[in-house]
């Protein structure tokens, strides 16, 4: 149904005779109004109502039911593991991502383009394939002799794998657009390369580093497929998404929804935080 309506809507901007502002944007006419209705309906049916259902189900037992579910010792353990590994991954990403971006932008070695491409592979891989890839290397018959199956280090490794490009891609463009004259001026005034980086470059990169690390954190918080296989199915390596899935499998929807609500709240916080971060950066730049 919607597939038929939508293209007509798409074409309707020019048809409406409504007033246009300076950018040529119009008020809604009949056709575009209908299109907006269909689009909002689709977004609601697909995204908004289902997400609302998660929160509603999380609170079926009222606030106390929600609280009991998220303070269940297993839920707390899963959430603590998820938060600590995600924070660690965000921190490592901030450092290694900045380093990688620096090398890719400022150090024109042969094969740089190739590295630039390779960085995206882990992220774009289907998550279960990413999980299998890690299992193949660090699982029980590890060809490199490193056995991480069922350890928390394996979870960190899996999360580092899938979030590899976040900080790099966030820092890289800022570094490319950076005016090198400022650094040269600092060097002329006697600053060492390290001082120049710390006092001149780093402050300019900080918003990008922070937003890259935040994106990595958000992704890590909800990750499932890539850490599932390497976790070995043990309770000490169960992250919140696995905990929620286990509750779904047991048809314990209120408990699953309570944990899901917490994850959802984190996603929303991250989106708002990123928005503030970007606004701050835009004001400064």
């Amino acid at each position, binding site marked *: 149904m*919607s597939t038929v309506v*939508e*293209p007509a809507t*798409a*074409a309707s*901007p*020019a048809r409406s005779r409504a007033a246009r*502002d300076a*950018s040529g944007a119009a008020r809604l006419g009949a056709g575009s109004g209908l299109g907006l209705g269909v*689009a909002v309906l*689709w*977004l609601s049916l*697909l*995204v*908004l109502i*289902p997400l609302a259902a998660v929160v509603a189900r999380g609170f079926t037992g009222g606030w106390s039911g929600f609280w009991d579910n998220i303070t269940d010792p297993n839920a707390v353990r899963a959430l603590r593991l998820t938060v600590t590994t995600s924070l660690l991954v965000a921190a490592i990403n901030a450092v*290694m991502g900045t380093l*990688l971006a*620096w*090398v890719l932008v400022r150090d024109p*070695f042969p094969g740089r383009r190739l590295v630039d491409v*390779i*960085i995206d*592979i882990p*992220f*774009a*891989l289907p*998550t*279960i*394939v990413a999980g*299998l*890839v*890690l299992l*193949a*290397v660090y699982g029980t018959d590890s060809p490199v002799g490193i056995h991480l199956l069922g350890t928390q280090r394996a979870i960190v490794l899996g999360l580092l794998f899938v979030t590899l490009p*976040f900080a790099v*891609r*966030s820092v890289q463009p800022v570094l*490319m657009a950076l005016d090198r004259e400022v650094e040269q001026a600092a060097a002329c005034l006697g600053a060492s390369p390290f001082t120049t980086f710390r006092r001149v470059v780093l402050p300019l990169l900080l918003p*990008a580093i922070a*937003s890259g690390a935040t*994106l990595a954190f958000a*992704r890590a918080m*909800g990750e*499932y*497929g890539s850490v599932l*296989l390497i976790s070995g199915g043990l309770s000490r390596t169960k992250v919140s*998404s696995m905990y929620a*899935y286990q509750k*779904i499998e047991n048809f314990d*929807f209120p408990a699953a929804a309570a944990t*899901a609500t917490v*994850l*959802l709240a984190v*996603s929303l916080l991250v*989106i708002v935080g*990123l*928005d503030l971060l*970007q606004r701050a950066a835009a004001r400064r*730049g």
Partner: protein
Amino acid sequence: MGDRRSTRLGLRVVALLYVAVLVLVPLVVVTWKTVRPGPAAFWSAISSDQAVTAFRLTAEIALASVALNAVFGVGLGLLITRYRFPGRRLLSALADLPLSVSPIVVGLALVLVYGPVDGWFGSTLHSAGIEIIFSLPGMILATTFVSFPLVLREVVPVLLEEGVEQEQAARVLGASAWQRFLRITLPVIRPALLYGIVLSLARSIGEYGAVLVVSGNVSGENQTQTVPLLVGERVQQLEPGAFQLAFLLIVVTVLVIVLVFLRRRESESKHSEPPAVAPDDLALSADPAPAALALHNVASNDVELDKGGLR
């Protein structure tokens, strides 16, 4: 000077080692594990009934959700950039939400609304004979959810950059709405649209968690296992053939990344001068990772809309 050079070399070595250990070594190991059992094992892994059904299911789901996302991506893109209405910025922010939601949460959300037993709409639909969860429609919904903004994110900046002059000129010259869309707007957004479709396709083929929850992961007669789910099952049940399927998915991913990389190079050479405003604008064309790309613009989108409004 020699000191600085050794610092640079040191940084380079650390960066390359990190990428090699994290990415290259694992990929080499998987390739080796695919190749070692020989071509016969490869063929039987991808030609079993289960695998063939999984390929068909994955293709159907990916095509349906890409089509939905393309239509709604372009439609919403036009609405957001060409019209002023209350809630416009909220709509644009909400459209980005799906990318930052955990796949398990996505699956659970859809089950709670469309599940046959006590879903908000699901029980009514179930008594009307319409099954959504544990069957194809639910898997399409889940896949569409997780890749929802990918086309939209690509199309919006192009629409903003293009402006409306040509569309208005065509209107003055008497072109109908359809003519204007097909002859003016579509050619302008075509590269961005195709790029969004490629990203969306890659994401749709590979989705695991969300599809796992809504599909019930059924094998056998009424199989709801897509290729990623089958990979997961083969690994967990210690059945052979997981690496071979995974290898195929890796090949698809690498192809997509190379395609994206080539496009990025093209757009870099087009705008060789970095725009003053704009780490965000640059990131838009420079960021080849599907969700990173769209996620990255979660916040910058508003800024761009403001620019569009000011023009």
